[in-house]
C-alpha cells in the first residue's frame, strides 16, 4: 500500500524540476503520508480507506511546484552583481591611472628614490588589479542539475584564467617600466633588453605554479 502513496506523490511532482530540492520534498511528503497511513490503520480503518484519506489530505500542491520552478535569481542579487561590476571597473581604472603616473616621480626626482617611488606605485596598481580579479562574483548554481554544475565549473575556470591574465599583464607593464628606467639611468641599452627574456621566464614559472595548484 505504501507503493500507492509513493506513486501518488510521484504523479503530483511529474512537472517539477528534477533536482535535490524536489527529491527531498517528495521524500518528506511520502514519509509523512506513510506515518499518517499507519496511524489510520491503527485507528481501525481499512487499507483502502486509509490510503484514500491520506491522499485526500495532501491538497493542492501547485504553489509548491511553482516555488520549485521559481528561479533563485531575485532582484537583490542582480543589484549586488551590478554594484560589484562597477566597483571592479573603478578599481581597474584607478590602477591603470597609477601605472601611467608611476613614471612621474622618476622624471621629477631623477634618482634611485624616484625609481623606488615608481615601484611602490606599480605594486599598488598591480595589487588592485589582482584583487579585483579575485573578488569577481562567483557563478552561483540555480539548482542542482548537471548543466548548472558545468556553468559553475566554467565560471570558476574563467576566474582563475582572468587572474592569471591580470598578473601577467601587470608583470609585462612593470617590465617595460623597469626596462626604460634602468636603460635611461645606466644608458646600458646594449644589454638591458635581457630584462624581457627574464620576464618571459618568470611568467612561465608563475603559470606552471598556477596550473600545478589546480
Amino acid at each position, binding site marked *: 500500500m505504501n507503493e500507492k502513496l509513493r506513486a501518488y506523490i510521484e504523479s503530483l511532482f511529474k512537472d517539477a524540476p528534477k533536482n535535490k530540492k524536489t527529491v527531498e520534498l517528495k521524500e*518528506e511528503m511520502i514519509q509523512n503520508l506513510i506515518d499518517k497511513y499507519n496511524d489510520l490503520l491503527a485507528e481501525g480503518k481499512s487499507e483502502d480507506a486509509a490510503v484514500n484519506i491520506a491522499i485526500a489530505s495532501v491538497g493542492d500542491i501547485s504553489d*509548491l511546484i511553482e516555488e520549485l520552478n521559481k528561479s533563485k535569481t531575485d532582484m537583490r542579487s542582480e543589484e549586488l552583481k551590478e554594484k560589484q561590476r562597477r566597483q571592479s571597473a573603478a578599481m581597474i581604472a584607478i590602477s591603470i591611472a597609477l601605472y601611467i603616473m608611476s613614471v612621474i616621480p622618476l622624471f621629477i626626482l631623477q634618482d634611485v628614490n624616484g625609481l623606488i617611488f615608481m615601484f611602490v606605485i606599480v605594486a599598488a596598481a598591480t595589487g588592485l588589479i589582482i584583487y579585483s580579479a579575485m573578488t569577481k562574483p562567483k557563478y552561483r548554481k540555480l539548482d542542482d542539475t548537471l548543466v548548472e554544475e558545468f556553468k559553475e565549473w566554467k565560471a570558476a575556470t574563467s576566474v582563475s584564467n582572468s587572474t592569471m591574465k591580470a598578473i601577467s599583464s601587470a608583470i609585462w607593464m612593470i617590465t617595460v617600466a623597469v626596462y626604460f628606467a634602468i636603460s635611461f639611468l645606466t644608458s646600458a641599452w646594449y644589454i638591458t633588453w635581457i630584462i624581457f627574456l627574464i620576464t618571459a621566464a618568470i611568467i612561465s614559472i608563475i603559470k606552471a605554479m598556477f596550473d600545478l595548484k589546480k
Partner: protein
Amino acid sequence: MSIASDLIRGHTETIILANLLEGDSYGYKINKAILQKTGNNFELKEATLYTAFRRLEEAGSIYSYWGDENTGARRRYYSITTAGKAEYQKLRDEWGTAKDLIDKLTEIGGQGNE
C-alpha cells in the same frame, strides 16, 4: 467549517512557529498536534503545511535537518531560530490586535461610550 479554515490558514506560519517553540518537530507530527489541540476539528492540508515550511525556511525563521531514525524512516525535522522566535512574537501580537479589532467591529449594541 470551511470559512473558519480559510481564517486559520492565514495563520499557518504562526501555528507552525508555536508548535516548534515546544521543540523540534516534523510535518506529520505538527499536523497531528494541530488535530489534537482542536479536538479533531481542524487539520492543515499537507500542501499548505509544506508551502509554509518553505516560506519560513527562506525567511530564516526555521531551519531543517534530516534525522536518522533507526527504524528506517528518514524524517525531515524543523527547528525554530532566534529570528523565528521574534517572528512568532510579532505574528502573535498582530493576531491579538486583529482579534480585538474584529471583536469591536462585529459587536452589536456595545458601542464605545465616549
